[in-house]
């Protein structure tokens, strides 16, 4: 349960998701993130047109849950693929083919490899989407008119109103001091 502090309102009287600063370059965005984090804000996200390591580092992101998911998918594929072959060839339908042993483990390696890669690969994509909370057609940041440039050449920093230090005025000043090309309100 969230604490029942009423959400701050935007200038249009709408509930505020946060404040968004717009930058023209990744360098300014990184400087902005550093200064806002130094001021004690924690509920931040940055939006960039392409992956930028410095931005991810500045946000303090470490590690990702995706590799563990991929490992899990791969192990599942490995066990399921080999298990399927073992069970069908040895237990359920043992058939003498050219005098080969029922448990022809060498022959079972290629399909096992394929099922391992198949499930690991699907886990990578599905895992990435799940960890990122996608598909998510609606998000408050899309309410900002300028945000469509996040997929072109603009770099955005959002301080969410859920941040304990958030205060519409103070946060706006904190963002404005990082020399953005604009500060926008993000309505819920």
């Amino acid at each position: 349960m969230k604490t029942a502090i009423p959400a701050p309102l935007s200038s249009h009287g709408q509930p505020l998701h946060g404040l968004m600063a717009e930058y023209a370059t990744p360098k300014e965005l990184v400087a902005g993130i550093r200064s806002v984090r130094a001021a004690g804000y924690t509920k931040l996200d940055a939006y960039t047109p392409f992956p930028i390591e410095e931005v991810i580092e500045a946000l303090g992101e470490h590690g990702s849950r995706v590799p563990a998911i991929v490992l899990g998918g791969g192990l599942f594929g490995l066990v399921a693929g080999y298990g399927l072959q073992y069970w069908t060839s040895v237990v359920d339908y043992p058939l003498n083919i050219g005098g080969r042993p029922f448990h022809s483990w060498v022959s079972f390696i290629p399909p096992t490899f394929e099922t391992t890669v198949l499930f690991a690969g699907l886990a990578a994509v599905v895992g990435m989407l799940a960890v990122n909370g996608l598909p998510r057609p609606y998000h408050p940041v899309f309410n900002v008119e300028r945000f469509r440039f996040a997929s072109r050449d603009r770099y955005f920093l959002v301080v969410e109103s859920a941040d304990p230090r958030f205060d519409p005025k103070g946060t706006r000043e904190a963002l404005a001091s990082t020399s953005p090309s604009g500060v926008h309100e993000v309505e819920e």
Partner: protein
Amino acid sequence: MSAVLERPPVIAPGHTPATVTDKIAATVLDKTPRWWILGFAVSFLILLMFLNAVAWLFVKGVGIWGINIPVGWGFDIINFVWWIGIGHAGTLISAILLLLRQQWRTSINRFAEAMTLFAVACAGMFPILHLGRPQIFYWLLPYPNTMGMWVNFRSPLVWDVFAVSTYATISAVFWFMGLIPDLATLRDRSTHPVGRYVYGVLAMGWRGSARHWHNYETASLLLAGLCTPLVLSVHTVVSWDFSVGIIPGWHATIFPPYFVAGAIYAGFAMVILLAVPLRKAFGLEDFITMRHMNNMAKILLVTGLIVVYGYVMEIFMAWYSGNPYEWYMVFNRVTGPYKYHWMALIFCNAIAPQVLWIPKVRSSIAALFCVSLIVSVGMWLERFIIIVTSLHRDFLPSSWDMYHGTKWDWMTFLGTLGLFLTLFFLFIRFLPAISIFEMRTITKTDGGTSPGKP
């Protein structure tokens, strides 16, 4: 970058994230160009020929094809191997060159991956049509059934089902994942409500969050790591379809590496064949530069030499094995009724591409296009030679026979070119043929922060 020699830039100078976005998005969002309508119409006509051939096949059965005993594998398997091989270059570019940090791959990986998908789709047609009863193709898959039977996992043909279906699935998801940020770009830039809706749904709400990018990059790298052994496994398994058999000319350990090299060879030839008109038609010379063409020509040359090594080794091993059937197979291949096919193959795959040693040839678009065309023909002939000359004269002279494709074989084969081109035309019209977000990473941003991607 501590390169001693200055290399030409990957893309033309002066581009920023904004200009690459505008330029590539325009290929999708602008009005349909006239050449597209014409090209699509021609491709679609060829596709109709394919459907015609397939419809007649469904009515009459595989008897309309040239296959018979002893040559039970003809055009269908030749075309299957040819197409699946072409697909391999796309995965090589998108996965192996990503892991090797070859930045130049960025401009060509998207359409090369699309080429992979469409080539696999074309390849998949042939084994299924060859079944004779294509409606029960799913018998190839292990599934619980009322007959109480399971597939034979000791057979390379079953391995092939697993390899090709995994390859198709993983290529498709890898390709789609790569498209997500670009679909978001199109969603944000499209002015048409239908475009915004469709691209919006496909983009799944991608908003370019740095945290999302972080997971996205991790997933991309892992997928590249998974695709690398996968792509090598696919043609290896395809080659096992042959080399596990005991037919002279097939039963050779050289087959897996030789097939994989041949696949990459044919695939890069196809990438060049597609890149040349694509960059011209969309005016993308800034992004697919001569450096790309030159690099691809070098890969063509290297893989071509590996293929030639394969040819030499095949002949050497046939002699060295002391097996009269093996040696006769080589003798028959070189001097028998298919000798002109063999000579054409040697010209196309071994002799003609040697002009790529000359830097001037590598920097001539027309020459590269011609060499690629020759290599594509040569790789098709290679599969023809491997399959037909091995089968048509096996151990017993009483069962020898000749094989020729019928007009239905040719219509089906040429028809899949129509299928491929139709899909490709649809792709370049509705999706960005060059990865926009990856191109943004390789432009020098004015702020000076180096882009995050290798």
